[in-house]
């Protein structure tokens, strides 16, 4: 599979990370590519979200199905596939949790899979405490207070996560990312109960 692909139309070589033939300008079929390379942005956790958005809009302009509606079925199909691949990648990079998971994977770290139980007692006990405190809150004022506390905890965890990526401590980053996904999930649940 490592043979470099050629254009389906003019047979010239297609460089990696591109989806337009440089010779005949035809759209190419989607291929596997990581989200950072797709947008051509630096592979890091502290992403410039504006830079991401600009790159996203640029790609969508190039490959949007509207541009291909008058062309062959094949080209329409490629643009539909590419366009949804671009959307999906944009969503994933926009969320800090899935962005962290992508980075962990790119660095060879197998992050937590869904059908596997998580058993770090320290994190789990902290999560249980937060849940208990919220349950015990007697009035809306106290509930709001515990949400504010939770907000602070979320930004602290984000900061530590960012630091651990900078230091390339992926084991720590994985644990913090799991904690972050718990905290964010709880925040949604709490807000529903306000």
């Amino acid at each position, binding site marked *: 599979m490592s043979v470099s692909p050629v254009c389906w139309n003019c047979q010239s070589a297609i460089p990696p990370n591109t989806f337009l033939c440089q010779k005949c300008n035809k759209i190419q079929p989607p291929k596997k590519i990581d989200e950072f390379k797709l947008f051509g942005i630096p592979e890091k956790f502290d992403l410039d979200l504006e830079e991401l958005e600009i790159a996203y809009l640029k790609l969508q302009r190039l490959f949007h199905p509207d541009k291909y509606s008058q062309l062959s079925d094949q080209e329409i199909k490629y643009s539909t596939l590419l366009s949804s691949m671009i959307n999906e990648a944009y969503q994933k990079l926009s969320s800090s949790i899935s962005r962290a998971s992508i980075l962990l994977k790119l660095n060879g770290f197998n992050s937590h899979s869904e059908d596997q139980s998580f058993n770090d007692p320290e994190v*789990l006990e902290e999560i249980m405490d937060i849940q208990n405190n919220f349950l015990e809150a007697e009035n809306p004022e106290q509930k709001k207070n515990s949400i504010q506390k939770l907000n602070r905890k979320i930004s602290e965890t984000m900061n530590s996560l960012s630091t651990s990526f900078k230091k390339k401590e992926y084991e720590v980053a994985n644990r913090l990312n799991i904690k972050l996904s718990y905290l964010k999930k709880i925040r949604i649940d709490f807000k529903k109960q306000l």
Partner: protein
Amino acid sequence: MAYSKELLDHYENPKNVGSMDKESEQVGTGLVGAPACGDVMKLQIKVNNKGVIEDAKFKTFGCGSAIASSSLITEWVKGKNLDEAHSIKNTEIANHLALPPVKIHCSILAEDAIKAAIDDYKKKNRKNR
């Protein structure tokens, strides 16, 4: 979506909610979670000197299926010895509660929690002998 009667029973009227002294040598505690859905499950067993589980308690934050799975497994392990309790499979829980496929992980969580509780108990009691 239609949930089974068994599931609703355990969800609306969960058995064995509570906690035991986790420092006690008779008590084993298992704490596991599923980060993707925000579930946390704490399951505790109290073992008598014949190695039989005398009592079991749980505290679960999570969806109805996670609560029902914890409630059911605490009922099942009571009166069993550690090996019997260790051999309970998540599929038995899932079948009994007729869990929909997207909720199978809740039964896996319950199986992992009871195994963790048994391990915790064994670890505590190995040290003391």
